């Protein structure tokens, strides 16, 4: 039976992280499952978790009144979900819905940030990975916008 910490070791986001740091992150982790169709989070809800997807597929959606949910992106095994907990007012701006049975590790963001404030090395290790994820994210979104007018 995988512990939350052991699932972090195998997740690409944490590749290269020291065991000591992984253990600290592990203290904020819990395993979560979502059925197909279930929401991980909804727009307006407080952004309290950072999700690492271990298995399954999640759609990031924005709900439009007449057209219903529009999928902006889908994320599968090995991806990370949740980047709004850095941005006021610290709540989700989109919905995330499991498209199939999805297993993830959820990190409590408040606890995680507290640890980062206490240990800047941990903080840097996380932020480095996080920044890279955002850079890739921006590149992907920019391509999506440009393609609309192709």
């Amino acid at each position, binding site marked *: 039976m995988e512990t939350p910490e052991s699932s972090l070791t195998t997740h690409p986001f944490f590749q290269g992280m020291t065991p000591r740091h992984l253990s600290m992150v592990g203290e904020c982790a819990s395993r979560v499952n979502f059925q197909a169709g*279930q929401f991980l*989070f909804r727009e307006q*809800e407080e952004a309290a978790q950072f999700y690492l997807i271990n298995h399954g597929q999640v759609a990031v959606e924005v709900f439009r009144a*007449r*057209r219903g949910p529009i999928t902006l992106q889908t994320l599968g095994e090995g991806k990370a979900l949740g980047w709004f907990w850095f941005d006021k007012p610290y709540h989700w701006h989109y919905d995330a819905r499991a498209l199939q049975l999805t297993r993830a590790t959820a990190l409590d963001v408040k606890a995680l940030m507290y640890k980062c404030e206490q240990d800047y090395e941990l903080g840097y290790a996380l932020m480095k990975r996080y920044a890279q994820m955002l850079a890739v994210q921006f590149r992907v979104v920019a391509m999506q916008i440009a393609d609309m007018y192709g």
Partner: protein
Amino acid sequence: MRQAPAYLGDEVVIEPQALQQLLEILHRQGYQLLGPTLRQGSLAYGPLSSIADFPQGWGDAQEGGVFRLRKLKDPVFFGYGVGQQSWKQFLYPPRHRLWQARREGNGFQVLPQEEDAAKFAFIGVHACDLEAMAVQDKVFLEGPFIDSLYRERRERAFILAVNCGHPCGTGFCASMGSGPRATRGFDLALTEILQGPRHYLVAALGTERGRQLIEQIPHQKAQPEELEAAARLLAQTARQMGRTLDTREIKALLYRNYENPRWDQVAARCLNCGNCTLVCPTCFCHTIEDTTDLTGTEAERWRRWDVCYTVDFTYLHGGGIRNTIRSRYRQWLTHKLATWIDQFGVSGCVGCGRCITWCPVAIDITEEVRAIRESELAAPPAAKEEGNGDA
């Protein structure tokens, strides 16, 4: 029989035969008589010419999705509940032409409309339907814009109400405070009593118009024991109603339960047929249809009853707002019992039970509310669902 003068607020007693005279007087006064008749195995409000048109000796058995007529032992005139249609079909007709217009040059001319001359006498109005008229008065007469057709017909209509001596299977007027006794808005209100060999009607006088009518037919001042018999009968009816609806803080209850999983459950059953809106005596949604003839020179505008369950009811370019059965059923129920209160100061529901009887899958508005209330006892709504709720 002594002709005692009748006063407003008084109650008098009349014999059943006097009903015939009553109808004749109203007819002579130019009223179009409308009342309960048997039609195609059901109960319908239609034209009356004499008391022989009443379904005397008939009652009904109503349950979720079921309406049956049944023969009674007693030769009572008003032994049944409400049929499929209410009186709104007369005051607020299902189809009504608003105007005609003709092209002229680059423009058009709107043609004047004929005056509506309809003068109705509604015979046998149950208390719930009377209350429904009061509710529709708020919609059509008390907003910034008034429906003039409704106003004219409503003002002219003579109302002879009937208090229910037989509990109906799906009604819950007692819960909604709208029956079984009619308390206001009538010209006359009758309670039919059959005690052994004695068959009489206690008539309450509601207006000057009603009093004048009673003056012209044989009547007696009601005796205390006759009034008691009526009161007992109505109390018994109230106790035996087929349904109840707990209306305590119902607006707040529904307002905080828009994401309750119960909506998914009822949506799985609801056929979106809209029967409930068509039989409901307070539903008022309508659409406006602009038509033209084949040459494009004559145009008409019609008003037609509409149903909030249709897929295009909320259609805007690009799509509708309520795209699921779940959201449309939720709209109907929350409008009827909650948002209506904010809009008009009263509930939209009068507990007539028609929506329960005439739903093909027997969805029961009282059961839906009960389920939502009970779901809160199981799990208080304060905690917002995080990652658990599916909508």
